[in-house]
């Protein structure tokens, strides 16, 4: 079935997701649970990847500008802008698509094939809203923190790599990361990550919610969730960059 069929079905699901919640307290509790499960559990992987990417960007920049004509502060500046503009939003989003996208799709998909969603519906619960809204809110709240954390840790990783390999001094680096700093880049990254988080959770929830069959199909939904989330992240990255930076 075609793309338009899925887009229509996706929006009608979103429509149900944003219906008025019946019991606010229960939604609140679910959201806290999801922040814990999706957000806090992602801190470690984001930290590890950020420190290594910061290190690699710094070393590569250092070797590519290994010419006395280039000032040393270029290293810090390049590391900073790469992290702020692309890495801590887009690349982190792609990693989260793999981690939380597959988690959401397989959890909701399992609930579908084991009739837990039917059980919710029969109790008169709006299952779409109950299962998906807390996940959207949780991810939209925590991903900006992950992005900020990634920026800080990435810059720190760059510093460690730079001084331990001796390609620059701490002074060069600190000067570089402050040089021609544009605070708006942080805003740009945060806007992007919030939109990416929305895409990841809703696309993955969509695939999970409309799983039919058994555990095999749950696996397929989870793969589709990751692939489609990643494609839409890349697509929206282009669109948002054009809109926000031009």
């Amino acid at each position, binding site marked *: 079935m075609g793309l338009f069929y899925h887009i229509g079905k996706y929006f009608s699901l979103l429509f149900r997701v944003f219906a008025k919640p019946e019991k606010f307290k229960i939604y609140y509790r679910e959201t806290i649970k999801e922040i814990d499960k999706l957000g806090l559990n992602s801190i470690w992987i984001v930290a590890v990847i950020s420190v290594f990417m910061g290190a690699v960007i710094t070393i590569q920049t250092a070797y590519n500008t290994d010419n006395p004509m280039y000032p040393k502060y270029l290293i810090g500046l390049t590391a900073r802008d790469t992290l702020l503009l692309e890495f801590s939003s887009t690349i982190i989003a792609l990693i989260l698509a793999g981690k939380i996208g597959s988690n959401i799709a397989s959890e909701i998909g399992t*609930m579908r094939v084991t*009739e*837990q969603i039917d*059980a919710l519906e*029969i*109790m*008169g619960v709006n299952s779409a809203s109950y299962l998906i809204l807390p996940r959207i809110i949780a991810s939209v709240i925590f991903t900006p923190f992950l992005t900020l954390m990634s920026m800080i840790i990435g810059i720190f990783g760059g510093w460690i790599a730079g001084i331990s390999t001796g390609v620059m001094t701490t002074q060069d680096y600190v000067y570089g990361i402050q040089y021609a700093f544009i605070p708006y880049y942080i805003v740009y990254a945060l806007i992007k990550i919030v939109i990416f988080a929305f895409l990841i959770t809703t696309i993955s929830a969509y695939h999970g919610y409309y799983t039919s069959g058994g555990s095999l199909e749950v696996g397929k939904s989870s793969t589709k969730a990751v692939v489609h989330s990643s494609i839409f992240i890349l697509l929206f990255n282009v669109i948002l960059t054009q809109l926000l930076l031009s």
Partner: protein
Amino acid sequence: MIEVKNIAKSFNGIQVLKNIDVLFEKGKTNLIIGQSGSGKTVLLKSIVGLHDVEQGKVIFDGTVFNELNFKDKKEMRKQIGMLFQGGALFDSATVEENVMYPLNMFTELTYSEKRHRANECLKRVNIINANQLYPAEISGGMKKRVAIARAIALNPKYLFCDEPNSGLDPQTAILIDDLIKEITVEYNMTTIVNTHDMNSVMEIGDKVVFIYKGAKWWEGTKDDIFDSENEELNNFIFASKLSQKIRDLKNGH
């Protein structure tokens, strides 16, 4: 009492339910029997509104359920308890939390009142000392019983059970059947049970409806079932060597 009037349902152009008319009585255990794939689950889910029917009416004690608006339907659903084929307990919640779930959603009871009610229901189905376990930690028969406890937590007027004893040993299966029967009488509910187990038919078949390829093929009570002339029904009932033997004995061979 639930009346089903001329309902039909298809998936992707294939008709799964064909113009079904049937009446399910109050205070009785009404059984839907039929082969695997004959449409029992689809029929049950169409009655409770998990599937939208294409035509016809489903009437719950005078209220045309399938024509209600979203809000009224939701209100009605609080009077419906359902036991799913696999139990459908919430994996991430303990046994007690599962039974408390409908109470959390729909009542303004305090926490201790809800716990009290949940434990009452668990005791009713003979689940004791398992409150803090997760569904993955209990046996299949216990899951079914917890699911029954959850289904009756809000004192429903209607109870639906999709193959309550599939995957259980004969002894446990009979326990579950008897439990369903007892609860039905105790709360004067209208109960509909899907099954392909002849033991259940003999045990609790107050009314039996035989579905064949999506159509109602026969109806009657557990007492008339062996005297039926219906060929497909006979093929279904006497599929096993055991039931053939019983028939032969009965006929004096």
